[in-house]
């Protein structure tokens, strides 16, 4: 048990890093910000799940997925379908020509709930689906690609195409899953109003708790044998394969974990923001999420959270006042991070710490020398 705990917590700096970000997000921000802004931070934090998932599969596994939005969206849609069914009980939808089905289905002349909506009536099923549907989907994609040794650039392009396909499918199915508007007007979770302030506070903390859990799970994986193998196969895949490991299985595993993380983010997004739409599934949001991870540092789970917060804060700040400037900045961020700071914020932080340690050592040894001489 304690071995597992050690692996989750990592070394002393890792523990401090986790405590610092938990205090920052859990104590400091709720004290400083009003509930509107805090809800906004909560929304950013749901993207942090995706950024962390990219640290796992891109930073450590070397698998750049340009379709993490797929899993974010699938998780979000699973949650949204449950909430939508709850929001459209026969009494509230009495004015529709078919009461008891979601409003957008009624607008599209559907008279019956489609079969894949039926099981989402149960909350347990929806919760399981949030995790299982994206993971199974990731398993199918991963198994089909990695077993055939599709990797690197080709994998990135194909995931991008899958994200495009899914967006086109959702937008095309106006009646079945809400089309381009997405699933909107979500009100309650088991009769609990998710739109009032106290619910928003609670959801924010649930979100934070899940984020911390994901950090621990991520560390547990990375600090173990799987993590070492991932790093090894990122550098020399063939050599790992010749050592007798089935490389594909490790890649599939980490890709599935990444999908599950993203899906949790998607579900929390739906709960906190109150809707889900195809604009979070496609290519553009997926690539933006890659930049969150890159800015934070592709090798650091905590860094990914900071990166997400920072980029999104910048986006909100600039797109409120200078919308044109934001695209320039975003572009410059992509280029700058890739060219000048490949390890992102975490990399800058680490090199600063290294420098400081070196300096401290020098001061120590210098004072030791002076002490000896006196």
């Amino acid at each position: 048990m304690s071995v597992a705990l050690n692996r989750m917590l990592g070394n002393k700096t890792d523990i401090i890093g986790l405590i610092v970000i938990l205090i920052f997000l859990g104590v400091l921000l709720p004290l400083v910000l009003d509930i509107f802004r805090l809800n906004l931070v909560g929304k950013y934090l749901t993207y942090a799940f995706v950024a962390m998932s990219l640290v796992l599969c891109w930073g450590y596994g070397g698998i750049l997925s340009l379709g993490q939005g797929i899993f974010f969206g699938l998780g979000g849609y699973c949650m949204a379908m449950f909430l939508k069914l709850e929001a459209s009980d026969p009494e509230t939808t009495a004015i529709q020509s078919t009461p008891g089905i979601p409003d957008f289905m009624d607008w599209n002349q559907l008279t019956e709930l489609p079969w894949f909506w039926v099981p989402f009536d149960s909350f347990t099923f929806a919760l399981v689906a949030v995790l299982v549907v994206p993971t199974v989907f990731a398993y199918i994609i991963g198994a089909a690609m990695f077993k055939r040794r599709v990797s690197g650039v080709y994998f990135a392009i194909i995931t991008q195409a899958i994200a495009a396909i899914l967006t086109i499918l959702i937008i095309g199915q106006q009646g079945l899953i809400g089309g381009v508007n997405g699933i909107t007007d979500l009100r309650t979770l088991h009769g609990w109003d998710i739109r009032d302030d106290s619910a928003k506070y609670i959801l924010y903390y649930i979100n934070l708790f899940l984020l911390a859990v994901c950090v621990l799970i991520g560390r547990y994986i990375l600090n173990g044998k799987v993590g070492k193998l991932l790093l090894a196969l990122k550098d020399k895949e063939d050599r790992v394969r010749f050592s007798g490991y089935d490389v594909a299985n490790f890649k599939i595993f980490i890709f599935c974990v990444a999908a599950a993380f993203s899906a949790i983010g998607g579900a929390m997004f739906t709960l906190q923001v109150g809707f889900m739409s195809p604009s979070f599934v496609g290519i553009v949001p997926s690539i933006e999420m890659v930049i969150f991870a890159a800015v934070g540092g592709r090798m650091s789970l905590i860094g990914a959270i900071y990166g997400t917060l920072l980029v999104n804060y910048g986006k909100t700040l600039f797109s409120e006042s200078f919308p044109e400037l934001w695209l320039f900045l975003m572009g410059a961020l992509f280029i700058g991070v890739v060219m000048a700071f490949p390890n992102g914020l975490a990399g800058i932080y680490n090199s600063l710490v290294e420098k400081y340690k070196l300096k401290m050592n020098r001061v120590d040894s210098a004072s030791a020398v002076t002490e000896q001489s006196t």
Partner: protein
Amino acid sequence: MFSDYSASELGSIFAMQGFSGLSLFCVFLLMALGLAIIFGQMQVINMAHGEFLTIGAYTTYLLSVVTEKYIPGFMNYYFFLAIIVAFFIAFIVGYLVELGMVRHLYKRPLDTLLATWGLSLIMQQIFRSAFGAREVSPTLPDWLLGSYQLTDIIEIPINGMLVVSVTFILTVAVFYMLNKSRAGLRIRATTQNRVMSGAAGINTKKVDRYTFAFGCGIAGIAGAVFTTIASTGPTSGSLYIVDTFLVVVFGGAASLLGTIASAFSIAQAQSIMEFFLSGSMAKVLTLLTVIIILMIKPEGLFSIKVRK
């Protein structure tokens, strides 16, 4: 789905959809030619390729505005000048991009993807600031308008024929350049064995720079030609970028013949299915088929066999 139509109707449907598929094929091929050179020869993923196309399109638009205002008598011929100018402007921008950015990233292909995506965001915003968010079209010369009546139901627009012929000429030219000329020989040598080519006296850095710029220049020509069939907006290049990458990957990255074959099959599949299904379902089915075939043949349709 075929039973509702008679044989002759089916024939004309296939002919008409086939022709509209042909213009889609030209769009894909013109974009993919430049991309296949850059990606296939240099392993650089240029996500800003669509923006080089937009550069060509805006160049044509600017030239048409200038010609109309100052030398209206030249209106009938400016288009040929536009193609050449579009090539050179895209070439120069591509040269500068390679010099300033891409050459630092050759060892990290996935990072070129992110950096060029950033570049494409910046370029789109520049277009938006310079030309406005609205779509523009150049005034086309009179001889380009109208169409040629083939049979009672089949008529072929002249601008479509222009696109097809430019695509044909350009493809032949690229083929000739890569396979017969000295510059092409250098490019192929550098791709196949960089160290050896360097030792044999080829300046591989220079080859890389000109290859990248040349690929961008071709995108510029593509942009000039597209102004005849569609209007241009700040984001019009990025609409096709994912499709084009799939075309290149599907065809086999280093094979121009494969690029042509895959552009043709994807365009025709999509266009013919569009008649029977909705446009979005046709696209979904086409992309899905491509992905499934890619899973079976990860190296693409026509791959050069190498030991790894």
